[in-house]
């Protein structure tokens, strides 16, 4: 399993994990201060091309962090699936960004830098922080009047490589080159508008730029891990679970879990549509096996609350096991397989009308009951009464703590 990001809550406890965030915040504030971001005049100079410190610091940090993130993901140290990628709400983001741009040039700060400014006693920074608090308060009071717009143009976890249809490594290299080009142009502007001496720029910046480009190219060649790569890394550990039958849950356990109010059960039926239409369990969602690895579907699963249990099912277990492997490779927690599949479910809960139509000639992972009509979930066996029968089974579901952050980006 990829070791990072760390399961902080498991290591330090729920509140203890916040100490790590306190240290990260400290380093963040410290660096902002030494960069001069506590000084509104320096920040505003960006918009008159006199001093482009803001652009240099921001884009240097973005490309350095980006290259390190995707390099560590490529070598299997960091799991990109477990990292918070701000979901895209395109138009609210753009409108909010424009409002912030106006606020930036009027007030001279952004929220993070104003905190540093206020912390170092700058009175304009203190007034700005008070303004930010007032603005936030006003937003909380007014957002319900335009919540439809505020929740519009939602695209989920949508990344530049998906949008451009390019590999992640290529996009990383393009962003690095774009930033370097902006620095080059920015320095020219500084010299023209700010009368800045070009010799004052450090020589080592060329070396640093060269190293970044080199690393970006190396990891463009290495590439990001595919589902197969990710599965190969965890195969021995996970195959053992399959052999021990530690993740195949009895139909009775599934039934009880769906009626457990503390757990959210998401049943995923990976069979062909024909079989799904003939018979499925009530509330089971139809996602064909080929669709399981779709990035949108995977990120949807990562957005589910921490108490969600995913139960995969096919007619027997073969297709469901394949789907389970994909979810494991994509680091989706709490995934299980329905023991015996839908056939096993019908054998357990079906009434005589259903079970007498057993077709012994059915092949592997095929529906082995004959249905006259496609009634879907309108059978009594689709929603059995959990109190009707006492079923003996060994409970196997153990909720693991979720590692993927459920919020980020100022959440």
């Amino acid at each position, binding site marked *: 399993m990829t070791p990072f990001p760390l399961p902080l809550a498991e290591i330090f406890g729920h509140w203890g994990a916040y100490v790590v965030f306190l240290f990260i915040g400290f380093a963040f504030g410290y660096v902002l201060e030494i960069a001069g971001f506590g000084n509104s005049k320096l920040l505003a100079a960006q918009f008159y091309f006199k001093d482009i410190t803001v652009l240099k610091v921001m884009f240097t940090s973005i490309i350095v962090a980006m290259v390190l993130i995707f390099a560590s993901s490529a070598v299997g140290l960091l799991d990109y699936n477990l990292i918070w990628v701000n979901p895209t709400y395109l138009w609210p983001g753009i409108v909010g960004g424009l409002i*912030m741009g106006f606020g930036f040039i009027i007030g001279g*700060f952004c*929220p993070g830098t104003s905190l540093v400014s206020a912390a170092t006693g700058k009175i304009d920074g203190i007034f700005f922080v008070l303004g930010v608090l007032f*603005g936030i308060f006003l937003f909380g009071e007014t957002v319900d009047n335009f919540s439809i717009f505020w929740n519009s143009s939602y695209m989920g976890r949508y990344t530049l490589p998906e949008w451009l249809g390019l590999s992640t490594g290529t996009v990383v290299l393009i962003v690095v080159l774009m930033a370097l080009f902006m620095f080059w142009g920015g320095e020219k502007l500084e010299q023209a508008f700010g009368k800045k001496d070009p010799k004052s720029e450090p020589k080592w910046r060329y070396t640093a730029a060269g190293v970044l480009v080199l690393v970006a190219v190396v990891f463009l060649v290495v590439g990001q891990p595919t589902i197969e790569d990710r599965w190969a890394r965890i195969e021995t550990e996970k195959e053992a679970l399959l052999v021990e039958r530690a993740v195949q849950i009895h139909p009775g356990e599934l039934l009880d879990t769906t009626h457990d109010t503390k757990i959210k059960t998401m049943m995923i039926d990976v069979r062909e549509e024909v079989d799904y239409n003939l018979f499925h369990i009530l509330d089971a969602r139809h996602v064909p096996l080929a669709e399981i690895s779709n990035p949108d579907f995977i990120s949807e699963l990562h957005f589910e609350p921490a108490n969600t249990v995913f139960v995969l099912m096919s007619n027997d277990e073969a297709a469901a096991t394949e789907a389970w492997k994909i979810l494991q490779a994509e680091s989706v927690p709490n995934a299980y397989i329905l023991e015996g599949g839908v056939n096993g479910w019908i054998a357990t809960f079906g009434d005589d009308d259903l079970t007498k139509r057993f077709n012994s000639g059915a092949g592997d992972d095929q529906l082995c009951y004959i249905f006259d009509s496609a009634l879907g979930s309108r059978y009594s066996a689709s929603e059995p009464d959990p109190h009707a029968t006492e079923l003996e089974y060994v409970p196997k579901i153990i909720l693991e703590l979720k590692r993927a952050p459920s919020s980020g980006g100022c959440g």
Partner: protein
Amino acid sequence: MTTLTGEQTAKKTAVKREAKAYVDPYYAGILLGIVLFLAFFLTGSGLGASGGLNRILVFVEDLVAPGHVNRTPYLLAMAGGEKNPLDSWVVYVTIGVVLGGVVSGWRNGRLKFETMRGPQISNRMRWMMAFIGGGLMGYGARFARGCTSGQALSGGAVLSVGSWAFMFAVFGGAYALAYFLRKFWN
């Protein structure tokens, strides 16, 4: 090295420590990039600032007017019923930012009550502008679901489409108004 404040602040600084010049922007950028990377690498979340202020504010609102908080869906999600608005990572990042700022300001001799402003406006004018600008920033940051730290830096580094669109909107908005406000800053 930036020369913008050097002379002016050095003269004003009456405390024992001499105000040091700011570090080179590329150097600061590399350090900030490493901090941002470590935030993702260790915790899976990026950085944030306005979210922490939001939750601290909601915490106070919940103390003053819990009934109102419970009737407003946006606030309810953070502080409704038994929920503690301070139970979120971003609050601690925000507190850390303030502490980091104080320590760096103290070590570098920049801890001092003063107002940074353009030469053509009064302190009072600058304070008013700061409050108005802050109000817009706060409103816009919640509208965009993140500020420069939480959206532009964090989302930018992990290649979120929305964060890049947001970033261009911020720069666009600021550049669009900059010309009309030149008297305030120059």
